């Protein structure tokens, strides 16, 4: 009884902590926005792009989650995503957006199926099979383009080329929140007043609700749905047991092969859906448009400690940094101020915990370095007018690397992730 209660209160506390964290981040961002005068830090445009950039990464990450929770390492996400983009483009130009979604899901699932056959049935090393799929994906799609989009084909007449499909015959529907972000657009009006905090919250909300692609809503809904299925259903328990200890699962009557097959095929379908989203944004398939997002999704999943909420946070972070970089190179300098404020906050928290001497000598160094870092960031923000573009381009990567190295100290992957499993083997 007591343990149940303890678990309950801890969960509540973690949930509250996350909320407080988000609120604090918004307050900090709006403070930096006012001080640095770069409105793009919290503008609805930035958040709309951040959301659009985070979705394919998040979907790829979810794909990785499903496979790895069942014990199959999936670095073939990129290749499956490429298959998703091609099939979405091919079906989309002929039969519209709905067909694009179906075809993209199937294309990605096909990649997943190949991976499942290789790793589950034939016991091929997961990394090798994944690499093979990353090679096969672009190869197969280029071949299909050469056959179906060649000079003189009907698709070519409609605007296709070796490297791109014709435009989708119907665009993906977009929805807005009535009154708040369309029509009388209350949030938009509030955002344009540039009041402290209020306008920032309005900008963020408007970015997340104005002309949102329906696939974004589906993708966001898939995160709690994945959590529910994997952690709250009997099927999810069986699936995760295949990732933790397939031999124990087998002894309890779980069909490990079948479960792994299902998980990896769903994984591929989710990666394919990420590809469909890219096609929706560009309104057509363009060769190479995945741009390594499958790998970034995998990193987001590891950052998120193989959990849906964590990977969503990782994907959002990368999406935001990438969107901000594109929106405004000037706003990126505002991040210096943000960094300085964060470090000052950290030093404050460290000092409140009691005299430094009680916490061991190493803490002097940590606090000292943090204070120095804050000073350097603050000085940089004051002196640097505009960053050289070379630095602006790498901001998202540097930011991700920093957060990864700070936040990802205590990760635990599924215990039997990547371990080959043969039915009936002793372990």
């Amino acid at each position, binding site marked *: 009884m007591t343990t149940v209660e303890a678990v309950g209160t801890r969960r509540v506390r973690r949930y509250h902590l996350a909320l407080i964290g988000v609120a604090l981040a918004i307050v900090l961002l709006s403070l930096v926005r006012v001080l640095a005068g770069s409105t793009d830090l919290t503008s609805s445009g930035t958040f709309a792009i951040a959301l*659009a950039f985070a979705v394919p990464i998040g979907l790829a990450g979810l794909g990785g989650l499903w496979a790895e929770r069942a014990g199959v390492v999936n*670095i073939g996400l990129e290749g499956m995503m490429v298959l998703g983009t091609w099939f979405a483009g091919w079906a989309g130009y002929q039969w519209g957006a709905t067909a694009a979604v179906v075809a993209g899901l199937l294309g990605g699932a096909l990649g997943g199926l190949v991976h499942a056959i290789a790793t589950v049935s034939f016991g091929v090393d997961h990394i090798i099979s994944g690499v093979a799929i990353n090679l096969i994906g672009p*190869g197969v799609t280029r071949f299909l383009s050469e056959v179906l989009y060649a000079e003189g084909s009907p698709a070519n007449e409609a605007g296709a080329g070796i490297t791109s499909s014709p435009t989708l015959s119907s665009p993906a529907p977009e929805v807005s929140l009535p009154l708040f972000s369309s029509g009388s657009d209350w949030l938009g009006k509030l955002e344009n007043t540039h009041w402290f905090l209020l306008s920032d919250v309005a900008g963020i909300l408007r970015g997340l609700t104005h002309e949102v692609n329906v696939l974004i809503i589906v993708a966001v809904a898939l995160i709690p749905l994945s959590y529910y299925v994997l952690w709250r259903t009997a099927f999810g328990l069986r699936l995760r047991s295949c990732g933790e200890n397939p031999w124990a699962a087998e002894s309890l009557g779980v069909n490990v092969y079948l479960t792994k097959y299902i998980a990896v095929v769903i994984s591929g379908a989710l990666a394919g859906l990420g590809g469909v989203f890219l096609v929706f*944004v560009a*309104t057509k398939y*363009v060769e190479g448009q995945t*741009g390594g997002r499958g790998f970034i999704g995998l990193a987001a999943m590891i950052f998120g400690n193989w959990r849906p909420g964590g990977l969503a946070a990782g994907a959002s972070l990368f999406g935001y940094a990438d969107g901000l970089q*594109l929106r405004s190179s000037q706003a990126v300098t505002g991040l210096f101020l943000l960094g300085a404020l964060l470090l000052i906050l950290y030093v404050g928290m460290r000092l409140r915990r009691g005299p430094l001497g009680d916490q061991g000598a190493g803490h002097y160094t940590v606090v000292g370095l943090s204070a120095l870092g804050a000073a350097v960031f603050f000085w940089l923000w004051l002196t640097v007018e505009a960053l050289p573009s070379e630095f602006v381009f790498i901001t998202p990567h540097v930011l991700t690397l920093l957060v990864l190295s700070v936040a990802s100290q*205590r990760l635990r*992957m599924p215990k039997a992730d990547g371990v080959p499993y043969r039915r009936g083997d002793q372990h």
Partner: protein
Amino acid sequence: MGGVTLLRNKFGKLAVSTLAGAMLMVTAACGGGTDSGTAASPEASKSGLKVGLAFDVGGRGDKSFNDSAYAGLERAQKELGAEIKDLSPAGDGSNRGALLEQLAQAGYNPIIGIGFAYEADVKKVAAEYPDLQFAIVDSGSSGPNVTGLTFAEHQGSYLAGVAAALKSKSGHIGFVGGVKGALIEKFEAGFVAGAKATKPDIKIASEYLAPEGQFDGFKAPEKGKAEAEKMFQDGVDIVYHAAGDSGVGVFQATVEANKNGGGKWAIGVDSDQALTIKEADQQKIIMTSMLKRVDNGVYEFIKAFKDGAKGGQTVAYDLKVDGVGLSTTGDHISDVQAKVDEAKAKIVSGEITVPDKP
């Protein structure tokens, strides 16, 4: 990177290095074995002229730079009776050198590399096959059997800048470059110079989609769209792009910006994009395109080769020989054509020197 630490615990160091190696392989070999486009001449080679051409990243069907080169190749096929073969590189362009080798071994002569990225590969392969003639577009000659075909993009972009400055109502225009580097900066420099010379107080926003060497900036429509959207929200009303396939995103953003009050325009690049783009709503918002007559360059080179010309020099296609210029499809710039022609005359006469660096 906690993930790597974990992996190391899990698989041992060997496995981690294998993984790292595998990822490298992926980037290196991504479609390294992909097939390439071919187009054999229907009426075989009457003249014994066999022309091989290797496209830039994006390949055939990019509605822009590569397709313009292909138009020149096709003209050579029709008018000079050449047998032609064209190859498109892998998605990341890693097999450029292999394509040139392939053409050389198959006995094609001359061989043309499209795009400055071929510079090193053309130099190397041309040295290996001294008996064959090579040409490279967007780069200077690098050997006795290499002809450089360069274009004065800055001069054409100057005219685009003049037209944009005259047509802009908000006094705020924008430039979207695909990948940072000397070539695309020529476009930017000319555009800015032309606009400033026409209206000294004009505001110009100038952005790139990817840093130098990262060629995916030419094929990221979603980034082009995001960048152009931002510009339109800031009050820009005309955006000029030099971003390859990413330009499609700029056109999409322009169409959408016109939904909330019209008067927003995009300027295309390389080919006459109001013709090469198939979407009707996008055709309507392309004010003009900065033409880069790669087709002329390719055709003239093949013709000269047939007439016995040898390489070793760089041929510059500038405004004087109409190697660059502005398209007039849709008649959107007819009201400012006189001023554009005036600027053109001044550049040709040497009265205006257009900078090629920003």
